[in-house]
């Protein structure tokens, strides 16, 4: 068990807050990424085609499109903090194995890629297709944080931060499921992500939730989940990549087993929100099988955030309206 996992919930809350506040010294593994070298900030140059094949032969990725004016706003922003990843105890041969059924996701999973504090690329390496409104929101949030006045968000208020932020955190979660439902139970934020696969027999509770309303269906062995109806606008990441309450997240979840005893979940999330993005775009995340982390650490952010006499909202400021 690493020292990191022994942090109290308050310490972890502060660590996250420190991330929001750009207090790099407060986050043991966070460090500022080197500034961009000044070249075209439109992503990596396409790899050269393999020998014997000319341009356009089909193996080399297509060139990225030129940046829009809105995307240029994003690329001009200071780079996000670069998060590290704390090692977790290795899964051993004595630990439970993931069920052989590719549709059975039950067990403990852990996002094993470094947290993207700001989603700067889609899964193909392109800039997020922001509208000018979307770019302005991100720029406002990043610059306010840079100026020492980060905005209040759901995380800072100890509210459910929405499915994307919730999943992205490097903490374990448990999946339990039945034929008509799937439930994610997260260590952080008392998070729950409830998915109905048959709203007629297994309806979701009424009302709007911070986590939205999620309906799923199977396409082969991939669970496709559409999440809508969010109670409030979401931050998709720590820096504030936005999703409006009318936005939609489509998650395509599959269990990948390469036969090496290390299955993982792959979740491709399609972000749809005409208010902030010109077209749907995709990000991908990987979650490692970690049955050896079934006991969650307590997360009790209310003790700090709910203090009626002290500083609440972690000292963040109210965001100005669009």
């Amino acid at each position: 068990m690493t020292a990191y996992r022994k942090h109290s919930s308050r310490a972890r809350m502060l660590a996250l807050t420190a991330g929001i506040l750009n207090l790099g010294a407060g986050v043991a593994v966070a460090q500022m990424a080197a500034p961009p070298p000044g070249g075209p900030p439109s992503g990596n140059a396409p790899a050269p085609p393999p020998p014997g094949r000319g341009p356009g032969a089909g193996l080399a990725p297509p060139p990225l499109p030129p940046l829009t004016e809105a995307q240029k706003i994003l690329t001009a922003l200071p780079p996000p903090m670069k998060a590290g990843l704390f090692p977790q105890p290795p899964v051993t041969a004595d630990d439970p194995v993931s069920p052989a059924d590719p549709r059975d996701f039950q067990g403990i999973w852990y996002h094993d890629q470094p947290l993207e504090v700001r989603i700067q690329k889609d899964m193909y390496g392109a800039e997020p297709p922001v509208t000018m409104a979307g770019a302005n929101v991100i720029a406002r949030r990043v610059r306010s944080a840079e100026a020492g006045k980060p905005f209040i968000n759901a995380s800072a208020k100890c509210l459910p931060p929405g499915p994307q932020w919730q999943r992205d955190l490097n903490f374990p979660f448990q999946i339990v499921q039945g034929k008509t439902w799937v439930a994610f139970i997260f260590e952080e934020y008392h998070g729950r992500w409830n998915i109905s696969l048959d709203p007629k027999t297994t309806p979701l509770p009424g009302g709007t939730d911070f986590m939205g309303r999620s309906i799923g269906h199977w396409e082969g062995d991939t669970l496709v989940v559409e999440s809508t109806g969010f109670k409030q606008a979401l931050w998709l990441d720590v820096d504030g990549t936005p999703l409006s309450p009318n936005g939609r997240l489509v998650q395509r979840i599959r269990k990948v087993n390469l036969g090496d005893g290390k299955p993982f979940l792959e979740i491709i999330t399609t972000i749809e929100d005409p208010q902030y993005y010109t077209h749907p775009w995709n990000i991908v995340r990987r979650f490692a099988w970690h049955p050896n982390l079934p006991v969650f650490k307590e997360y009790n952010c209310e003790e700090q955030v709910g203090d009626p006499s002290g500083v609440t909202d972690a000292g963040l400021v109210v965001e100005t309206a669009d």
Partner: protein
Amino acid sequence: MILTCIMQRVFRTNIPAIHNWFVTTGMAGMVLLTICTPAQGQATTISDFEGVWKIAKPSNSLEASTPVVLTAEGRKALAENKRLRSQHKYDDYDITISRCSSPGVPRLMLTPMRFRIWQRLGVVTFDFEWNRALRQIDMRGRPTEPLLAPQMTGQTTGRWEGDALVAETVDVSDRTLIDDIMPHSSDMRVTERIRLVDADTLEDRITIDDPIYYAKPWGGVVTYTRQPATPFFPEHVCLDRRDTAARAMRGK
């Protein structure tokens, strides 16, 4: 033997898989699962608590079934809590009320709202409707270390004694209460014997052992009634409701 060992392997991954096996093979209604433990050569009985439960008789107090004998320090702490309550200074003694902080163990077991139990991967998880709170009992029999910082729900390990789950909880923050008024020190040990009285009744016999505040162990019995099965609870956000109530009180 082969079957039980297969079951044991599956069990470590997923109790409902066994439960579903009983259901699909026409053995529904069986609530006790017996598996073979070759290392010990004896049968271990594991009760299936999974389902949705709700306290049978809601109460803010852990109603003692044995006399509560306070130490001098305990009397002082209880008197202070009562004084603060009379002055509505809740944040000075009960941050569950004032901040929505986790009630911890054992107070969570008095919640008037529903909870769900999962028995997976050697861990019994109580999944509460109230504020989406969690508590877990580690049944894996692995050695534990004292927590660096106490938790509201402490650290709980459990074992089976017959059909009862015996849970021991330590490292509970002294910023929680046993119920809505009774104090405890950080040295408190909570022992629970949880068992099925029948298929639809769950019982939790709670014993408080805290020599700093109580001259002898005391406790009570809380029972729960099985509720209609549902995989989802409404998204209960205590802070949200507290803020709504506060705004209403301010006339906004």
